[in-house]
């Protein structure tokens, strides 16, 4: 036995409210005993089914019976209006509703044959009130009618059609469920996107729109770079840097490609490293490290000034513009500046007799001294060969003598080329010696 406090109130309502006096305490004791109620276990479902077995909700339209005229005395026996509205009390409500309708003249008092011979009054009444009820303000329990309709709908919902059953099964299948909940929206989005982007005009319009929005933000005056700040430097160089940067300005710092500008500045001959910074108030500060002139190269284009790595810095108008720098000449000389500088270092003992270096055949150096003397150096080991010659000079003053060239191209067999006059002198001395002997 279940205790009475667990008694299902739903069941209690549905089961006992058919008592016309409406007081549930008057229900027999057996009605309150939970053990006996078979449908108790079926819960609300069954209670609803019971409650809807009601002549008002169940009757189809053409068969609505016209109630016999109800004597007024019976109306007094009807339950009060405030009682709970359940299925089994509905008959009393109906009677009262009919009575009210009769009083207000909405409904005919006498029985009417159903087969077509209905008076117009009833038909009008039907047309206005499908269930055969008088108008709403005359019917006391509107909420009961609403509940009846809801129950009707629920009853329909209770019996699933085969289609709804199958749809529910499909919906409960994980694959389909995921496909419908995730796949379908994603596919729809993709299709919409693809259809939008299919036309080139729309793509352009979209990108233009995006550009407008971007520009509205980026091209604000706060972001504009307007001023170029340069350190002190040679006017030609400054001119060149300004020539690179000024066309870009004024421009938003978002659009300014500093890396590109830096590489373009570093393309200038005289600049080794450039450093660009954006300062506040729209200032672009450029600091540069210039290349240091190390050597002059008389090439086909003119007298070029090269730095220590052989990179061209500029052109010199003539030798006297940069008197301190050594000079090299010959085709391909500019590419061998480090070796040339080594040779100049090695030739320091020669002092101001040194005139310069000449690249011969783009493969070896000649050291040119004054008086037209030359030291012909080999392709490899040029510095060692020059030091050899300098050692000879220091020991025997070789280069002070009347020679044209010291040929060191083959280091194993140095050759001194002496001048024509010296040859004759030697021949004279030799002939004098032979005459003296004779």
């Amino acid at each position, binding site marked *: 036995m279940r205790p009475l406090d667990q008694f299902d109130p739903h069941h209690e309502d549905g*089961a*006992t409210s*058919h*008592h*016309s006096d409406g007081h549930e305490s008057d229900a*027999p*004791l*057996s*009605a309150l*005993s939970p*053990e*006996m*109620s*078979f*449908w*108790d*276990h*079926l*819960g609300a*479902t*069954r209670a609803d*089914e*019971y409650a809807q*077995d*009601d*002549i008002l909700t169940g009757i189809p339209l053409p068969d609505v*019976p016209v*109630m016999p005229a*109800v004597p007024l005395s*019976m109306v007094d026996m009807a339950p009060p209006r405030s009682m709970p509205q359940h299925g*089994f009390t509905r*008959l009393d409500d109906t*009677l009262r509703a009919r009575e009210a309708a009769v009083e207000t003249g909405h409904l005919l008092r006498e029985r009417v044959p159903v087969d077509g011979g209905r008076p117009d009054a009833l038909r009008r009444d039907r047309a206005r009130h499908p269930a055969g009820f008088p108008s709403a303000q005359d019917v006391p329990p509107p909420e009961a009618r609403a509940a009846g309709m809801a129950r009707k709908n629920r009853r329909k919902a*209770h*019996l*699933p059609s*085969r289609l*709804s*059953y*199958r749809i*529910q*099964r499909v919906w*409960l*299948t994980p694959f389909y469920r995921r496909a419908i909940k995730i796949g379908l929206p994603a596919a729809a989005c993709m299709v919409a996107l693809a259809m939008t982007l299919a036309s080139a005009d729309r793509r352009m319009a979209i990108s233009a729109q995006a550009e407008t929005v971007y520009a509205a933000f980026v091209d604000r005056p706060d972001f504009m770079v307007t001023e170029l700040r340069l350190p002190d430097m040679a006017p030609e160089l400054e001119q060149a840097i300004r020539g690179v940067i000024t066309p870009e300005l004024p421009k938003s710092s978002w659009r300014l490609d500093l890396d590109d500008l830096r590489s373009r500045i570093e393309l200038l001959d005289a600049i080794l490293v450039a450093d660009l910074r954006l300062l506040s108030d729209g200032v672009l500060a450029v600091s540069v490290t210039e290349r240091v002139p190390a050597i002059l190269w008389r090439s086909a284009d003119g007298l070029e000034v090269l730095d220590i790595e052989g990179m061209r810095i500029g052109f010199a108008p003539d030798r006297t513009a940069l008197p301190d720098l050594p000079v090299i000449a010959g085709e391909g000389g500019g590419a061998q500046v480090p070796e040339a500088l080594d040779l100049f270092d090695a030739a320091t003992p020669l002092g101001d007799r040194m005139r310069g270096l000449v690249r011969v055949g783009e493969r070896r150096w000649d050291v040119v001294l004054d008086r037209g003397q030359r030291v012909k150096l080999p392709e490899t080991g040029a510095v060692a060969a020059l030091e050899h010659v300098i050692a000879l000079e220091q020991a025997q003053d070789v280069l002070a003598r009347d020679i044209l060239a010291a040929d060191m191209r083959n280091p194993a067999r140095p050759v001194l080329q002496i001048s024509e006059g010296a040859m004759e002198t030697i021949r004279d001395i030799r002939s004098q010696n032979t005459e003296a002997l004779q």
Partner: protein
Amino acid sequence: MIDPYSSQRAMRQMRRAAMQRGVIAVLDIGTYKVAALVLKVDPSGPEPKAASIGNLGGQAGFRVIGAGTTRSRGVRLGEIAAMSETETALRTALQAAQKMAQTRVDHVIVCVSGGATRSYGLAGEVDVEGSTVVENDISRVMAACDVPDFGVGRDVLHAQPINFALDHRTGLSDPRGQIGQRLACDMHMVTVDTSLVQNICNCLKRCDVELAGIAGSSYASGMAALVEDEKELGAACVDLGAGTSGVSIFIKKHMIFTDTVRLGGAHVTLDIAKGLQVDMTTAERIKTVHGGVQATSMDDREMIEIGGNSGDWEKDRRTVSRAELIGIMRPRIEEILEDVRARLDAAGFGCLPSQQVVLTGGGAQVPGIDGLAARIFGQQVRLGRPVRVRGLPQAASGPAFSGSVGLSLLATSPQDEWWDFELPTQSYPARSLRRAVKWFRDNW
């Protein structure tokens, strides 16, 4: 050898597939209600003992995750009378259960209450081939059982080995591995109308689910309503349904007899409807709310509003005393119980060591029926409710749901049936070879 139970084997295969998927539904197609339960099978084993719940036996390996109940339609006396109506009812119950479970169910085990189930006792005996009994011997002894002629249009619903005897020892539940020469077997076979099974198959097919098993409802409710010692020592379960009342006798954990009385609560309702001149719905309500079988002097004074919706005010305002109602109900319930008693007597229930009778089913909720049943069956009568099952809603735990709960137990831990064993292997080629070798040895 042709397998006579290939369809049963196919259903076992379905059940195995459902176990692998982990979700299976049980469906109790009754005369008054169709109940569907969706079970989630978790092989993780029993969960730790809760404070209020005792030991869980076979009901621990699964959990009820969905339940749906609806009014049965198109079913009369447990048999399908209107196929499309029944299909609608099944669909409704299944849909509600699926919705609650939030899972789709593809395999369904049903129980049938109608179909004029008949039970037969079978016996078979074979020589053991080797020295010890192996599985094939059991298959052979079951195949050797002399199947009675149960007539055309009948199908085997259950065929359970209930006892094995090896030489002079009987009462073995599992003789495998034991040494002996002569193996005998007792089987209990239940047959049912083929048409009913086929109708149910068709209904389920139209509901897009597969039939994964079928069981008699009296068997299922016995599994749920009897406790372990009753099943062991001998008890009868009387499932008082709406259209039919099932009887099943259990001993040694096996059902040894089942029968159906084609009378039930619906007949009581019909009597009330006839006697009080009301429609069936009102009669059913009066029966469930005010019904009883034992009249007292108080009941003469307790007046029952009959109600009704005939539209005739006088008719709908009639009252009867509860004693009158009991006077209508009691003879019919007595008749049902007497009928059940007759079936039990015919089955030799009186010879069992324990003669416990358990009343379950929706009809067992009539107040005082245990007293009435005690007059008919003897003193050992109790009202049975189904065992506790994890996840079962409170609304579906009453005696009316014994069949559903028992079916859930059978779905997850079924008892051995004929078709759970392999077919006996045809060892003819091996034997003939052996005979040839023997002949060779004897003659050379």
